[in-house]
């Protein structure tokens, strides 16, 4: 028994179905969603960008490096998590490190980060939170933990000649609680914090 009228072969039906479905699902549908996004939710649809003095400085959702040309962290900015995206926070090469738990390269990297962050912030290596020592899944994690942000307060204050209390208050005002009070983890958005930091007067 054939499903098709006057015994049209399955392949011919399949080909026509694929063409029509491609027009509907592959062209019309994404264009309609794009239209809705661009008209009703343009800020989100275009990447939740952050601007300073009229210029785009990044996306609130995409982390960015605050390092010099040689990759050394700049002490006057809050530092993000380690990143495995390209050379670090490469928006065109999202990736985790994919190192396994016993990988010697990862173990060495964590030890190195521990020593570097301890020295950079003049803190005890044992006080460094886990997010500061580990690369995120995307390599573009825009957040750090409140603990890691607070740990950087003294360094930032000294570097920018600001009162420690003012910088700490700034961090605390940027701590985002869990979504709906219980989903995910508390975060601090590093770019938004740094933008506010830039505007902070001594």
């Amino acid at each position, binding site marked *: 028994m054939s499903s098709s009228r006057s015994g049209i072969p399955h392949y011919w039906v399949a080909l026509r179905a694929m063409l029509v479905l491609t027009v509907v699902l592959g062209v019309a549908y994404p264009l309609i969603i*794009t239209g809705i996004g661009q008209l009703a939710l343009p800020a989100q*649809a275009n990447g939740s960008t952050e601007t300073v003095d009229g210029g785009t400085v990044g996306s609130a959702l995409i982390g960015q490096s605050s*390092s010099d040309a040689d990759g050394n962290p700049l002490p006057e900015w809050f530092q993000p998590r380690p990143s495995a995206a390209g050379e670090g926070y490469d928006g065109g090469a999202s990736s985790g490190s994919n190192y396994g738990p016993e990988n010697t390269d990862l173990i060495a990297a964590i030890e190195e980060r521990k020593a570097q962050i301890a020295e950079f912030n003049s803190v005890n290596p044992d006080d460094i939170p886990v997010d500061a020592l580990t690369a995120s899944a995307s390599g573009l994690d825009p957040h750090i933990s409140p603990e890691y942000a607070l740990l950087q307060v003294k360094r930032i204050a000294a570097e920018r000649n600001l009162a420690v209390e003012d910088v700490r208050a700034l961090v605390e005002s940027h701590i985002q609680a869990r979504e709906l009070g219980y989903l995910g983890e508390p975060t601090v958005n590093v770019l938004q914090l740094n933008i506010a930091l830039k505007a902070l007067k001594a």
Partner: protein
Amino acid sequence: MDVFFAVLQVATLALILTLLYRPLGDYMARIYTSSKDLKAERGFYRVIGVDSRVEQTWQSYLRGVLAFSVVGLLFVYLLQRIQAVLPYSLGLPAVPEGLSFNTAASFVANTNWQSYSPDVTMGYTVQIAGLAVQNFVSAAVGIAIAIALVRGFTRRESTTIGNFWVDLTRGILRLLLPLSMVGAVVLLVGGVIQNFNGFTEITTLSGGLQNLPGGPVASQEVIKNLGTNGGGFFNANASHPFENPNAWTSLFQNVLMLMIPFSLPRTFGRMVGNHKQGYAILAVMGTIFVASLTFLTLFELNGAGTAPELAGGAMEGKEQRFGIFASTLFGSTSTLTSTGAVNSMHDSYTSLGGMMPMLNMMLGEVAPGGVGSGLYGMLVLAIIAVFVGGLLVGRTPEYLGKKIGPKEIKLASLYILVTPTIVLLGTALSFAIPAVRADVESTSIWNPGIHGLSEVLYAFTSAANNNGSAFAGLTANTPWFNTALGVAMLLGRFIPIVLVLALAGSLAAQDKVPATAGTLPTHRPQFVGLLIGVTIIITALTYFPVLALGPLAEGLQ
């Protein structure tokens, strides 16, 4: 306190799925049993040349499935090969032959294994007109097969099991497309992007340069999850903030992945005329889901292993906004369905934690499994379970009024042998063929030692079970993996489909036998326990030796 949040998160998910179970399950039953066509559907049938009132034998139904899938395969292959001349290709060249084959096989087989990094390989046209279209249609094919099998149970002495083109069309137009439109807007509100901007170079706050990606992401992200496909628009998949911006979008994506697979038992119960049968299947799926999620979460919270212990926790490859709980929930959902999306990197899980996604796939992805494939996989296991139950008490096994005879048992047995054979053969060949082994060890494997074996085992497990997630350190864009995994995905998808449709045909042709005192009731806790046992024992016996060589060895050393 943290544990309280985790429980509350799972409770929210469970509540949403519970609320959806009846309306969505009943709606799907109506879709596939209604005798009326929508106006748009009538037009579509006219264009493609199908009479929607004519039903098909299982052989004809199968020929439709295969013809449609072969055309899809060629179509996705061709689109990639001509990428250089397509609009919105971001200046990317044609995708090479081997990779094009692998990707086409992957998306047609509802797997979405990605040997490539989308950020630097696929332009927008290939993504929306090739890959996302398969995200819709391969999902609709999966549901159609499950419905055909359920019809096998509901019909008496019937030569037909439905019309594939009608089931395909209705699944897309009445179910997947409307849900995707709503879901895409929800994701947009959450911050998922939807544009055709390409890359934008910006100067960062501290004076550096950064390329921000664009893309029609929301429209693809929703069907990637809803159709349990899993192929990310970006390399980092659902850990990428433009795919999954915050903790509530992550929970929403869990809902998208689970809503159809967890509601299909209701559809099944309604169609066979006994909701208790649906609840029994649901209970099996739900129990395995909660158990597996609990183990993975405990392993990751415990954070065993040299690197996690040194860092103070298992946060390598996890996003701060998700933390451990939202990561393990997503990882469990993704591998217990056939989605394979990730919001954390499974390769960086603790040794025993990394075993859980593998184990989830090895179960055959039945708890609740992929859209359609989860239900038909579970029904095959139910047939095995009534057979085992029949052996124990010495009765002829029956399920839903159908005799489970030699033919049905042969088909069911072949079904449960297919994927393990592909997984173990593929993994073994990767190390047994000297030239392949040299290439695998020097080029593909990223983590040295035992973990490297796990990467290869994970790849074949994922491909053969049509999951698509990876221990992503593995470089799979090589001639060996592109070919072997491509073949594994096609065989792992279509051999079971052949067997299930044959089973549907065989069951439909039977008359119903009345239940007697000797019939094993299949809606009671006793059967739920038996089915859970059968599901786990089959997997444990098949895969324990190879797990002992991989993640177990690493975790216990």
